[in-house]
């Protein structure tokens, strides 16, 4: 008898489990589901959390204002997929969001290495994918459903070099020669290659580009070698640990170039500023978004203040990018008047925004459109400089902080 009860209980339990397991997301007509592919756990979890914050704020705003008007006030629901920062997990999560959660559009995936294969999954299922990730090739595969509004590696490299040249023109001493120290994974290699090209085009002699091993315990020889050619400019493309090591060892080996620039990566992370204190003063770096842009574009400042009030921290480069992607989808939904994938895709492809006060211009450009590859050809990056432990936005002039002045040469205040 007792066994019988147990058996019934087990069966009931299993049935219960099964129903819990399969929530069968019945597509409520008045709901638009946007999938977010991000690292919510693992070593890069804090980035994923920042992305989630930015999107939650944006979605709450849209819903509070009455949802998507052209869809009869449909509310937006964000569905998160956790990549753990791993490519294979990113791909399975993307597939889960598409096939089980039936999302209408996707945003992802922070790391280019994760976004590259995950966006291919979105393409296969023909669900629009808005990229955050700078790896050029993400939009160079002839895909129809993959878009990127912001700068890719080439644009970032170009902005950095053009900015350096423009800022250097008004300062002395000038930059005549350079070395590039880049880590030897995909990112460092491709970025340094492009930087070399843009430097040479600007008439700067590049002594050498060296791809050093990522996370090396010691880089003295590299610094000694650089010192031997007496470069005016040192460009570093490094992740955080290497950025810390290079900056310290440059100081130890008394390598003090006129300008010290970074392609992004570790040099623009808050941890770098926190750890490097004085040695960071005067480093120029490429980034895609900085809160200082609010000084030239007031609504961005207001949006950022609300974010600070809500979450205790400003937007980050990547969370700003996620926010922009979200606003592009909202804009396209209003025009498409449907959640059908094909029409939504066409609406995104037809995006054309030039108003700097449009919410999709959170990363401000001259225009926001997509070319045949899905890349926004008008996207630019920005050049910031670390001054007194803070970033100052210096370039391009259209969005530079009005009261910011370039510090030249590197470590000008402490040498």
């Amino acid at each position: 008898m007792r066994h019988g009860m147990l058996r019934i209980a087990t069966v009931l339990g299993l049935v219960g489990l099964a129903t819990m397991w399969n929530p069968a997301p019945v597509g409520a007509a008045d709901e638009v589901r946007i999938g977010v592919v991000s690292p919510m756990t693992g070593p890069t979890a804090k980035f994923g959390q920042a992305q989630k914050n930015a999107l939650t704020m944006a979605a709450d705003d849209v819903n509070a204002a009455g949802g998507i008007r052209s869809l009869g006030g449909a509310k937006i629901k964000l569905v998160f997929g956790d990549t753990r920062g791993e490519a294979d997990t990113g791909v399975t999560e993307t597939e889960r969001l598409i096939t089980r959660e039936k999302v209408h559009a996707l945003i992802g995936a922070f790391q280019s290495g994760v976004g590259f294969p995950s966006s291919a999954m979105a393409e296969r299922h023909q669900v629009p994918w808005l990229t955050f990730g700078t790896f050029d090739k993400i939009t160079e595969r002839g895909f129809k459903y993959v878009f990127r509004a912001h700068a890719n590696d080439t644009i970032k490299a170009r902005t950095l070099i053009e900015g350096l040249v423009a800022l250097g023109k008004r300062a002395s001493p000038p930059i005549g020669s350079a070395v590039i120290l880049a880590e030897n994974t995909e990112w460092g290699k491709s970025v340094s290659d492009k930087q070399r090209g843009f430097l040479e085009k600007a008439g700067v002699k590049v002594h050498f580009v060296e791809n050093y091993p990522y996370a090396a315990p010691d880089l003295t020889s590299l610094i000694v070698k650089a010192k031997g050619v007496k470069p005016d400019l040192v460009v570093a493309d490094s992740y955080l640990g290497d950025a810390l090591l290079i900056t310290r060892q440059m100081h130890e080996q008394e390598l003090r170039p006129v300008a010290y620039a970074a392609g992004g990566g570790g040099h623009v992370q808050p941890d770098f500023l926190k750890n490097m204190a004085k040695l960071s003063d005067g480093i120029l770096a490429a980034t895609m978004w900085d809160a200082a842009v609010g000084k030239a574009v007031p609504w961005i400042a207001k949006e950022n203040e609300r974010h600070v009030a809500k979450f205790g921290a400003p937007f980050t480069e990547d969370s700003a990018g996620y926010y922009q992607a979200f606003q592009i989808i909202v804009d396209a939904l209003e025009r498409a008047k449907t959640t059908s994938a094909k029409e939504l895709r066409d609406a995104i492809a037809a995006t054309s925004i030039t108003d700097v006060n449009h919410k999709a211009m959170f990363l401000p450009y001259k225009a926001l459109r997509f070319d045949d590859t899905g890349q926004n050809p008008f996207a630019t990056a920005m050049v910031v400089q670390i001054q007194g432990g803070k970033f100052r936005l210096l370039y391009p002039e259209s969005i530079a902080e009005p009261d910011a002045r370039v510090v030249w040469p590197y470590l000008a205040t402490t040498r």
Partner: protein
Amino acid sequence: MRGLAQAVTSGLLIGAVYGLIALGLNIVFGTMRVVNFAQGTLLMAGMFMTYWLWELGGVHPYISPLVTDISPLVTAPLLFGLGFAVQHLFVSPLLARERAREPMSVLLLTLGLALVLENVALLFFSADFKTVTTDVSMQTFKIAGLIVSVPRLVGLGAMVATSLVLYLFFMHTDLGRAVRATGQDREVARLMGINDFRIYGVAYGLSAAMMGIAAAVLVPFFYIHPGVGTSFLLKAFVIVVLGGLGSMPGAALGGLLVGVIEGAVALWVQAAVAQIVLFAVFVAILFVRPAGLLGVERR
């Protein structure tokens, strides 16, 4: 020429730190015949202990392995305890079941432990990078035009001193002799009345304690991160094979040699090529002289 001299000097100095870590690896291998994959993780643990002692207690990294004003919190004994405990709780039970002389499952166990500890560190300390800036952190001085980094020179000093103390311990104390005896032949040592499992605990603890010293040396000039042990562990493997498995002087000398090769090749050619050369030497040594430069051929 000055560039090369500078690269060799710097190579020698960082090589000393490699040597220190390789010594720790070699103590475990010399006694247990187990390559301890958790060595890098123990180094990471030591670095975090050193970091928190400095951050919260203001204890200078250089004294943290041996004395602090917060008396139970001294990294070397703490790490010895951790190593001893790991040995007793995880390694010994497995070792007791293994009949082979070079136990494969224990090797895998240490790898598993390394992964677990690293992920625990990620969970508790997050993936943030930390640095410690002490009075010596970026100090340098010049000898004949060569720039010598003070914290790295301290590393060389610590390696030499540690090697000396270890030598005295292994040669002139009963416990040291017992450790060597167990390493030479576990069964015979047991017949002589040596408690081999206790000796294993001592060896593992000792090698963990040495990571406390390596951590103290590294923290003022390097960064602290849950994954920090990996880059050093790989170097330590090469050094141990190069110098001779189980050979203490081999580990110390191998460390210096690897540092110099790395520095010189990185200057002449490229840092990435230095890694190729290093691992090519590693393979070549295994072919030509499997016992390593100073190792004794086993029959």
